[in-house]
């Protein structure tokens, strides 16, 4: 193979690899990206059922209820404008408590409630997830 041809082949391969990676990534993103919902989004339009999504907001005060099985909790996520009931089985993170920010990973059920597989509360108690901060700010300004 002539040097020039080899260089062209290699460049071609590299371009193909980049395009292939981008194509694969973007097509997989269509199906796998977990959209983020705030309670007021859910109130506006019905969320997709049974697709991995995230729900974020503040844990409503007085809403955490322990279920009889001892490992399941039910609570309400709010962003000031709307509320969504959430159920979670597992050990809640250390910083999960009422009146603080939480991001729940899981799925919506047909009745509009949310089943969380995982709860994220931040390491830092002063922290609020950026998505939650953004959405709360919006809902405060739009619907005072």
């Amino acid at each position, binding site marked *: *193979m*002539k*040097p*020039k041809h*080899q*260089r062209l082949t*290699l460049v071609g*391969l*590299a371009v193909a*690899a*980049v395009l*292939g*990676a*981008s194509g*694969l*990534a*973007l097509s*997989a*993103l269509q199906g*796998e*990206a*977990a*959209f*983020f*919902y705030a309670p007021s989004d859910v109130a506006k339009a019905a969320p997709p059922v049974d697709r*991995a999504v*995230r729900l974020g907001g503040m844990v409503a005060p007085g809403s955490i209820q*322990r279920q*009889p*099985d*001892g*490992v399941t909790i039910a609570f309400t996520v709010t962003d000031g404008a709307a509320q969504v009931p959430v159920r979670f*089985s*597992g*050990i*809640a993170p*250390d*910083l999960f408590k009422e009146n603080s920010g939480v*991001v729940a*990973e899981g799925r919506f059920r047909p009745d509009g409630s949310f089943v969380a597989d*995982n709860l*994220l509360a931040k*390491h*830092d*108690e002063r922290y609020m*997830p*950026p*998505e939650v901060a*953004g*959405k709360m700010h919006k809902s405060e300004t739009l619907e005072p």
Partner: protein
Amino acid sequence: MIAEAGLAALWLAAALALLQLVAAALGLRMTRTETAGAGGAELIGAVRPVAVVQGLLTAFALGALVLVFVRTDLSVLLVAQNSHSAKPMLYKVAAAWGNHEGSMLLWVTVLGLAGAAIALLEKRLDPRTLVATLGGQAAIALGFFAFLLIASNPFARLDPAPAEGMGLNPLLQDPGLAFHPPTLYFGYVGLSVAFSFAIGALVTRDVGPQFARAMRPWVLGAWIFLTLGITAGSYWAYYELGWGGWWFWDPVENASLMPWLAATALLHSVTVLATRDGLRAWTVMLAVVAFSMSMVGTFLVRSGILTSVHAFAVDPSRGSFILALLVLYIGGALTLFGLRIGTVRQGATFEPISREAGLVLNNLLLSVILGIVLIGTLYPLVAQALDVQLSVGPPFFNKTVGPIALLLVVALAAGPLLRWRRDDARALGRRMLVPAVVTAVALVAVLLLAPGTGVLSLLGLALSAGLAVASVAPLWGRNLRRTPLFTWGMVISHLGVAVSLAGMASESAFTREVLVAAGVGETQQVGPYRVTLEGVRPVIGPNWTAIEGRMRVERGSQRSWIAPQQRYFAAPPTETSEAAITSALDGQLYVVLGQASEGGRRQLRLWWKPLVTLIWLGGALIAIGGLLSLVGRLWRERRPGRRARDAEVLA
């Protein structure tokens, strides 16, 4: 006084970085023509000592910061915000880099020390390229000095000084913090050396085997640190977060994985350049990409624009500063690459079936994985710009990276069995026969013994067995005592990949989990273990109190006790859970104590994770292999007789 001295050292170091850049640029320009005056040579001669002094000054500044933390000097804002007088000494020291300003100072210090190390140790590189390299290193340092001094001064004073500090995030109060960030930063910033080498070589148009041989040990060194840092970080997150997972595809993790992927590709392509004088442009490109990924990673972690489970010190207002640096350096390097790469001669060619081709395949697959991880990590940012909030997590990465990584494993098994320059497909087939049979046997065995195993885990287990055999095959029939150390290094690193892969596949396929609210005296069965909650009691630590679950662990006739805790820290007020992990040769029992529930019961989460330790053992093997390789290369370079013989062999 100490804080002021540290700040002064930083300013001085910044001034020296400027001097280093200007001296290198002017010196190279003035000595380019034959009729150069003496001034140019003097400027060039100044570059090395300046680089050394600059490195020492940054180290002095970091030392000053550590000292004010050790003394808990609360009149320094950073200490007041991140430390506490009642904290154990190790964490006082570690708190110096457990925050934004301190970690950026550590970054700059490693950068300065890397420049000093080049100036002191690098003997093989062409002198002009070396000067250009140090100029490049100074250019990077300048930007980060500016960032540190203008936007995040670690030595800012607080007046009046508070009576007590706010304390360090309890999750960071772990020996891991003392070692993990420095290790990772040595890796991240060590790649700046490869970047500067690439800049230097582009400036002097000197891309060839000599350049590659000079660059290789630096890349290896940075890569070893990165490997260790990622492995240790994964284990740290595993036991500290208490979620039972070892990799979350979190932006901060991806930020360390991306430079590693690029550095791994670079490590292999630089070998092609050093041994066969091929892949010149590609290697230079990868060197630029590798450090660019380090900077992208720093940007993602420092700016806090992505939600992460690990981000511990973020300040969004500084994101734009790092973004500007990022655009400046990556854009500048790519422009230089575009302008100069046409003048780099084409290197040696090779056949489609050859070691070189195998390494090209390795590079392509690594680049594809890098591209996917990059897109997946940045996609939420792009979506955010379009006012859509989303996150990209394990389902995406496992689905896309998983299959390609398995392809890479196949390439990895075959690559070292190929000959340089030209090989025969049927000969390769014969050499691959045993690994292929082992893979098939393992595949059937898993299918029979554990039907219902997921496809990725199944292939992972089978391929890890095949790869384990293939990776030691290069030693087959050789005199082991005469085998060069770097060949051992390659074998051990590749074996480490097999070991790690086996651990990942086993963990994802065979983990057993139990989630209960257990009363005192109740027994749970998880995997081969029987775990009995004997009681719950309060305990007191140096700066925390805790609820501790005392549990009896039985396996056959063996019996031991574990005590997972829920800790409460007063400063800042936080709870953490300390998982209890029991290790056996065939896996780990992982127990987390949760909240109290009704009737005096306690939430417990127990996992049996077969062979999970192989994940980190494999990571350690990969790093050890790298270290052997590095020592072997340096040792051989020191013996000129050997080198002459090598040259003959190549000719």
